[in-house]
């Protein structure tokens, strides 16, 4: 049996390793073009926004159009700082993982705006249900970096007692839910959480993030059905970074024009946005949050972006896509674009940027030093072995007590 024409259709990407990177098939509408409806617009009236692309920063790095959130320079500098920190942190953690300091790591390189801008547009009291690639939220919400690292190296100060894989953070104080290793499971949970907040009469809303690959799971549909039926105050984000490990987005998308369009099938508000445009992400999240808080229901946001690095420390993308794609990704780099925008406004310059990078690099290095003083996965100390048996239930039952005894701890 040798290869012949496939007898049924199986989508394949335009280019594969060895081919020249090429994104010419991707249509990029100009910045500023999309209309910004009132937040109480009926879901079906946002259909065009599911098919277009909300963009604020144009090719000259100017903020244009109705979606410009008109942030102050301070706000944008803060956003830039969080994004740079996210990148610096990711890079350092990758190095440390390569050195055997932790078992596993996942970067968010190229997608920093998706997390950071959204977190800044939300209230800190809003509950987030992220996937493993929104660490930017933690920086935006001011989580202690040492704590984050202690989790990643599973040491005695890991607030998860060494139970979770690195990057699977939980931070209740910061309204950051426990990240699941299972894809899409938290999408419908976020809806339930949002309903409960509304039930309690609070103004808190919820937001969740999944990848475009994850949108194929049944729980995606469950979440949208719930959100639509109960008009829940929730933001459901699909981060379309083109790849799901080695699988290009076409396997999840099939013939679908966009991922955001799926939301229309449920009558939800839908936005498709330039995920590498800090201002677009901010504006879209702000709009959706306002809509949710005012009781007009959920919004589905597709952030169009590109996973610039490997899926995780367990894979090498050169096995499934051409090298150098990140460099020519037509929506550019989110850090660079916000930086240039601020420079264009006269609110930033290369020197300050370099200084910022240096400062954050030092912070990260110093933080790691401190984190390591509480132990590492490899050399300990870890949380006590007996903690294995804690938190399975509020109180261990006889089985767990016996088992703990068997282990002699």
């Amino acid at each position: 049996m040798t290869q012949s024409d496939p007898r049924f259709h199986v989508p394949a990407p335009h280019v594969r390793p060895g081919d020249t990177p090429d994104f010419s098939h991707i249509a990029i509408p100009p910045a500023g073009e999309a209309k910004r409806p009132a937040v109480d617009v009926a879901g079906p009236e946002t259909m065009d926004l599911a098919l277009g692309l909300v963009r604020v920063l144009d090719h000259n790095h100017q903020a244009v159009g109705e979606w410009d959130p008109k942030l102050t320079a301070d706000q944008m500098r803060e956003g830039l700082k969080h994004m740079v920190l996210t990148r610096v942190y990711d890079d350092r953690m990758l190095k440390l993982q390569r050195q055997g300091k932790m078992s596993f790591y996942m970067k968010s390189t190229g997608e920093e705006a998706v997390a950071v801008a959204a977190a800044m547009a939300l209230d800190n009291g809003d509950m987030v249900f992220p996937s493993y690639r929104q660490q930017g939220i933690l920086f935006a919400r001011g989580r202690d970096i040492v704590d984050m690292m202690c989790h990643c190296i599973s040491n005695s100060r890991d607030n998860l007692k060494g139970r979770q894989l690195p990057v699977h953070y939980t931070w209740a104080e910061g309204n950051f839910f426990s990240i699941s290793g299972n894809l899409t499971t938290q999408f419908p949970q976020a809806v339930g959480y949002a309903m409960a907040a509304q039930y309690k009469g609070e103004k808190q809303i919820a937001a969740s993030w999944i990848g475009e690959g994850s949108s194929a799971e049944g729980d995606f549909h469950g979440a949208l059905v719930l959100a639509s039926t109960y008009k829940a105050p929730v933001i459901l984000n699909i981060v379309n970074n083109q790849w799901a490990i080695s699988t290009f987005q076409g396997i999840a998308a099939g013939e679908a024009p966009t991922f955001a369009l799926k939301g229309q099938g449920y009558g939800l508000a839908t936005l498709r946005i330039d995920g590498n445009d800090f201002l677009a992400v901010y504006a879209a999240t702000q709009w959706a949050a306002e809509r949710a808080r005012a009781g007009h229901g959920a919004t589905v946001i597709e952030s169009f972006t590109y996973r610039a690095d490997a899926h995780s420390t367990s894979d090498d993308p050169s096995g499934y896509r051409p090298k150098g794609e990140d460099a020519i990704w037509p929506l550019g780099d989110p850090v660079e674009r916000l930086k240039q925008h601020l420079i264009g406004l006269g609110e930033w310059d290369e020197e300050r940027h370099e200084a910022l990078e240096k400062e954050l690099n030092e912070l990260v290095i110093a933080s790691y030093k401190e984190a390591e003083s509480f132990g590492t996965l490899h050399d300990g100390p870890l949380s006590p072995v007996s903690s294995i048996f804690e938190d399975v239930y509020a109180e261990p039952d006889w089985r767990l007590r016996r088992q703990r005894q068997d282990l002699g701890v």
Partner: protein
Amino acid sequence: MAKMNMIQALNSALDNMMEKDPNVLSFGEDAGYFGGVFRVTAGLQEKYGLDRSFDAPINEAAIVAMATGMAAKGLRPVAEIQFADYIFPGLDQIVSELSRIRYRSAGQFTTPVTIRTPCGGGIRGGQTHSMSPEAFFTQIPGVQVVMPSNPYDAKGLLTAAIENDDPVIFFEPKRLYNGPFDGHSGGALSSWGAHPKGEVPEDYYSLPLGKADVVREGSELSIITYGTLVHVALAAVEQEGIDAEIIDLKTLVPYDIETITRSVNKTGRCIVAQEAPRTSGFGAELAAQIQEDCFYALEAPIQRVAGWDTPYPHAHEWSYFPGPQRFINAMREVLEA
């Protein structure tokens, strides 16, 4: 005290808890306006409003996930899965999420959800309205598993489940909803009216999870079971005139190992019984643990009474259901061994 069947007793538990605690919500497919296909949630929407007792879309995963999210925000949702056979689309949300959130967040988030679901056969439901999938849930660290056998326990245990700070999978043997059932398929239907456990206080009360009942004391052998088969075991024992001790587990996780071992150490002979298919059913766990803890007291192999390793057939339901004769055969086996 009032006479209640199991449906009324469960309804009363929900009513008391919703009255007492505004964080208690009830929902499920057809469980709102209509009050559930078995009427367990009847009247709750009328009394407590649309947002406290409501209909859910037909998506069991979404139902569990919604409950999980709500519980993380401090509510105590009671979700109904219409038939236990239909819990499987929601199983991932139970295995990977609901059961583990306390653990993986190191106690930062907890999810006190109760999942109620009618289980078991004996109502000519065919293979998709008859399953007893409890053993699946006993394998999941982080959930507790309950199955009452009468109205009084049903109410007290459901109350305890709702108040419990961990998730509880609460199985309701639907064959017992309207009356005790001794496993004689042809016999007259009896009602809970005449049964002592059909006497149920209207007011709030709870029964401890993790505690079994010795429903019949005896010296010759121990029968460890739960749900519908408690009544079948009783009938078989009476019919055969054997002085068996019968234990109604009520809670499967964690099961009451003390009551079990006390009994088996006394009688030296043991039958474990489940309605589910035999292989890897909860009876296997019981037998494995009992042989370990009571080895030197055992005078005969532990016998398992169970459904066959097939789907639940429709027409031959009564050849599938582990009725009195199967108990009698097993009793003879353990006594003669």
